[in-house]
C-alpha cells in the first residue's frame, strides 16, 4: 500500500490526525482536512470543561435549574445517560466533582506543568440517574457537574471521520490521541494498528488488523499526575481506578461506544472479555485478549 496522506493538528487537549487514501485527489484531502479541523473546533466549543465559553461550562454553571441545550448536546447527554444505565453506573458522566477532587481541575498541559501534591477527599459519584433531560432542556442536580471526557472525543472522531469521507475521500481514519475511527471503503486487508505499551510509550505492545469500526484505548498510565493519580475515576469509590488493569484497547462499531467500553474494561477487569473484542494489559505484566492468535477467530 502506498503511504497514506496525513494531516495533523491539536484539539481537545490531544493530537488529532487525519489519515486517508493516498489515491484521493489532493483537493479533496485538503477540503477534508479543513472539515475535520472544523468539526473538532465545533465539538470542543460544545463539550470542553476547560473553556469558559463552552456549552458544557454553561450547563454545569446552571446546575439545579433547567438549562436549554443544543440538539447535539442533548443527543450526547442522552447517549451518555443510556450508557450509564447499561453499565450499572460504571460509566458515569457525573464524575466531575471526583475528578476535580483528584486534582484534574485544569487542562492537562497546565496540570503537568504544576504538580499537585495534595489529594482532596473523594467526592460521591453515581448521581447520573438524577440528571433530567426533556427534549432540549437539561436539569442537573445542584452540586453535580457533567464531564463527557473521552466520550466527547470519540463522538467528535465519529463525526469527523464520516465528514471526511463525505468530502470525497475513499477511506479515512481519524485518530485523536489513540481513539480512532475508520470510515469509507478501506483496502481489502484493512489496516495494521499498533497498540502502545502502557509502561513504555512509543513501543509497540502488539498490532491489530482492523478493517472497519473503531478502536479506543484507555490507560491509567496516560494523563497521570502522581502515584495513583490519573483521569479515570471509579464511580464506586470516587477515586482514580485501581483494578489491576493498566490499559484496555477495545473495538466497537463507533468510537464513542469504544470509549465507553474501554473505560468499563478498566473498571470491571477481565470480565469485559466475555463480551467485547479487547486487549488488556495487567499491572503484573500480562496481556489478556480474546483475539485468537492461531485461528484469527473474532469474538462476536
Amino acid at each position, binding site marked *: 500500500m502506498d503511504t497514506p496522506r496525513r494531516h495533523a493538528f491539536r484539539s481537545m487537549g*490531544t*493530537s488529532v490526525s487525519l*489519515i486517508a487514501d493516498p489515491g484521493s485527489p489532493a483537493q479533496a484531502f485538503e477540503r477534508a482536512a479543513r472539515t475535520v479541523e472544523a468539526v473538532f473546533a465545533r465539538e470542543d466549543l460544545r463539550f470542553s470543561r476547560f473553556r469558559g465559553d463552552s456549552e458544557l461550562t454553561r450547563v454545569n454553571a446552571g446546575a439545579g435549574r433547567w438549562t436549554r441545550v443544543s440538539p447535539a448536546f442533548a443527543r450526547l447527554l442522552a447517549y451518555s445517560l443510556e450508557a450509564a444505565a447499561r453499565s450499572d453506573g460504571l460509566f458515569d458522566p457525573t464524575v466531575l466533582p471526583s475528578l476535580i477532587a483528584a486534582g484534574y481541575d485544569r487542562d*492537562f498541559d497546565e496540570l*503537568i506543568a504544576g504538580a499537585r501534591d495534595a489529594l482532596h477527599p473523594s467526592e460521591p459519584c453515581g448521581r447520573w440517574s438524577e440528571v433530567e433531560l426533556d427534549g432540549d432542556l437539561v436539569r442537573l442536580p445542584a452540586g453535580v457537574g457533567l464531564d463527557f471526557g473521552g466520550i466527547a*472525543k470519540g463522538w467528535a472522531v465519529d463525526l469527523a471521520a464520516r465528514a471526511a469521507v463525505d468530502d470525497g475521500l475513499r477511506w479515512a*481514519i481519524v*485518530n485523536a*490521541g*489513540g*481513539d*480512532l475511527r475508520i470510515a469509507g471503503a478501506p483496502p481489502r486487508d*484493512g*489496516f*495494521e*494498528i*499498533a*497498540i*502502545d*505499551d*502502557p*509502561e*513504555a*510509550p512509543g*513501543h*509497540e*505492545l*502488539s*498490532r*491489530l*488488523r*482492523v*478493517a*472497519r469500526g473503531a*478502536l*479506543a*484505548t*484507555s*490507560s*491509567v*498510565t*496516560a494523563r497521570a499526575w502522581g502515584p495513583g493519580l490519573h*483521569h479515570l475515576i471509579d464511580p464506586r469509590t470516587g477515586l482514580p481506578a485501581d483494578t489491576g488493569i493498566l490499559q484496555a*484497547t477495545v473495538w466497537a*462499531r463507533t468510537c464513542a461506544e469504544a470509549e465507553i467500553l474501554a473505560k468499563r474494561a478498566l473498571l470491571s477487569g*477481565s470480565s469485559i*472479555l*466475555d*463480551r467485547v473484542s479487547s486487549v488488556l494489559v495487567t499491572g503484573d*505484566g*500480562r*496481556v*489478556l*485478549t*480474546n*483475539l*485468537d492468535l492461531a485461528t*484469527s477467530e*473474532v469474538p*462476536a
Partner: protein
Amino acid sequence: MTEPRARRTRLSRRALRVWAWVAGGLAFFSPWAALGLSPKPAAQAAQTPKDRPVIIVRRITRRVIVQDVAKPAAPQIRYVSSGSSGGAVAAPPTTTTSGSHP
C-alpha cells in the same frame, strides 16, 4: 670522607609526558564512568518495554446474534503479532492507539 649521596633517578621528559596524559585522561573520563555505573532512576528504567506473556482468554460465554441485515457483520479484527522483538523489520503500522496521550 663521606660517600657521595646516590642521585635520585629522575623520570625522563617522555615518561613524565605519558604519566601526565594518563592522569589527565582518567580525570576527564571519571565523571562519565561514575554516571554509567550509578543506578538509573525508576522513571527511566520503566521506559524499557517488558517481555510480556500473552494469554488468550476464551471467555465468550454467550453470543448475541442481531438479525438485522442493515447492520454490518462481525468486526474484522485479526491479531497479527505480539511484542516488538524479532529479526525482521516490520512495516510501520498505519497508526497507533494508546491511552489518551496529550
